[in-house]
């Protein structure tokens, strides 16, 4: 079995599990996409095709939804996704310097994934943890009161 077909099978499994949990009605589309995105890190074309087939919804309409919401990605992402909050509360307490440090340390621009597939850097709107800004979220870990000097140490925690 080649790696390709194996991953294809994983995709189908993940979609099946999500549909089993939520059902096939249109109102469950976003929860299904959320689950699949969480399990696979993004929404591969095969997954979209399978969801479209099972929900009897055109792919164009699914893509319309998937591309609308920030938490869903139609592009592959790195093993670790770094979200940097670029809203005003984080900005005025030093967010800009933190973002410069992140970009320099990772050698990435926003929306880029490192060639080794380790990191993806994205900017995000407010995450609701403003009292401890600037805020950086790596995967599900929230880092508050971040300053530029702490960036290397934080990144080093991820393999």
């Amino acid at each position, binding site marked *: 079995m080649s790696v390709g077909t194996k991953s294809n099978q994983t995709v189908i499994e993940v979609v099946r599990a999500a549909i089993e949990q939520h059902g096939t009605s249109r109102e469950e589309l976003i929860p299904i996409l959320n689950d699949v995105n969480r399990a696979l890190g993004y929404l591969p074309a095969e997954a979209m095709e399978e969801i479209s087939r099972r929900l009897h919804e055109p792919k164009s309409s699914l893509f319309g939804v998937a591309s*609308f919401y920030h938490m*869903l990605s139609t592009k592959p992402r790195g093993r670790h996704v770094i979200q940097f909050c670029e809203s*005003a509360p984080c900005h005025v307490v030093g967010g800009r310097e933190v973002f410069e440090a992140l970009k320099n340390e990772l050698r990435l621009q926003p929306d880029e994934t490192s060639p080794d597939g380790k990191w993806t850097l994205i900017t995000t709107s407010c995450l609701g943890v*403003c009292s401890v800004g600037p805020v950086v979220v790596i995967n599900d870990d929230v880092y*508050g009161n971040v300053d530029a000097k702490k960036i290397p140490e934080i990144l080093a925690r991820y393999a």
Partner: protein
Amino acid sequence: MKTVRSMVLVSSDPVSLQRGGQDVFNAMQHHIKAFGLEDEISLIQVGDVGRHDALPLVIVYPEAVIYGPVRADQVAYLVEEHLYKGRIAAEMEASVRELTGRIAWLHARKGTLPAEQRIVLRRAGIIDPTDIEDYILNEGYQALGKALSEMQPADVIEEIKKSGLRGRGGAGFPTGTKWGFVAREKPGKKYIICNADESEPGTFKDRLILEGDPHSIIEAMALAGYAVGADEGYIYIRGEYVLAQQRLKTAIQDAREMGILGKNIFGAPFTFDIHIHSGAGAYICGEETALIESIEGKRGQPRSRPPFPTTAGLWGKPTLVNNVETLANVPPIITQGADWFRSFGTPSSPGTKVYTIMGNVNITGLIEVPMGITLREVIAFYAKGMKGGAAFKLAQTGGSSGSIIPATLQDTPMDFDSFSKAGVSLGSGALLICNEDTCVVDLAKVLMNFFRVESCGKCNPCRIGTQRAYEMLDRISTGEASLNDLDKLVELSENLYMLSNCGLGQTAGTPLKDTLNYFRAEVEAHIRLKVCPAGVCKMEAMVPQY
């Protein structure tokens, strides 16, 4: 529930957890057991208590002593001193009696901040949010019981109308009137939606209510359902709020098992159930018609109005959409009455308001205070002054669509009407307090970037207007703009207001308008002198003139 000698609360909001709150809790559990105190002491994890400078917190009742920030390795000492020997853990006492980021303790929660008046947050941080019995012991579900046994649906609406409660999501629409709109639609399928898609930058009050007191929202939604004749409710919660979602799921499950949700609630001919619908990251879904589209599984693009959701909302049925904080006010109004509620706040804006405080101040976090206090009071008392003694320059309210409030307006009472008379808006209750190192052009640029990114793209004025405004602000910040651009910005903000389909575009121009109203000289310095007075903008276009 068994009787215990002491109650120990460990904060478990995301910030506490990130700072080792779980380890502290585990260590507490371990050491309480080691001293054989497990039967005398109840240990629970609670939501946010509003002191973000000193998380994770450990609070011991009945003495109401607060320790924070607590490290797991200090827990053994804390348990031995305070819980075993019964005295305050002296080594964990700070030199000052206030929480300043160092380990500290202080007596009586009420004394932590002057004159805080908690209605919607009265249980947050005091009860165990995952235990329905704890909620019931603290007057939970009394309002629902009272309404179902003693009140007609119309009485419930009348009480809310009399209380003068206004929507806390930003617009300040009278809640009772909105309920009346849905109630007067002909009987049939109707929906209650709790808008928990809190995405205004700087706003996290709803998260803290949901994490700290999830049952209060369930109770309020059931009350709303009884009042307007709906039997189904949705909580639309933003996808990023994972902990709040878990707490809500547990709460709904427990309420169903107790018969508080489901058929014939409290033996009355009233049926109500609640579903949770998670968002997937889109600011616009806080707009009620976009939120409805999103629940239906579509792109979250606002509908054209009319018809309003109160007439044709979710799946075309009459739908009541209320913000979390608004709903959290409902049960206490029903139990204690409209007159009691009106004793707080101002005549036109009764009750309290939860504010989130952040920016260049000494203490950040959230407070719940009566409507009508001033910004000066907030900064001086609650935020303990500006960081480093710097001068206060401006505050930005209510997230990105809020106003930029200059220091000259810091004595205006913060209620809906006083603010609107002064030409500014209260918004959703975020107070981003900035010192003189903040450049208004840079701030406006960040705010406009937010709208540019979050515009859903459905209507042209907003999609194109926010982009063009961002580009102009960017040119000002690099010294490449002309004075002509300022006139264009004014025109653009007017067009955004008049032509946009929904609130996002309509309010996107507010920061521009405020900036030019109150800080025109600073903006013009960027253009005429190619200088950023605050020293923030880089002014790349500046070349020596020979």
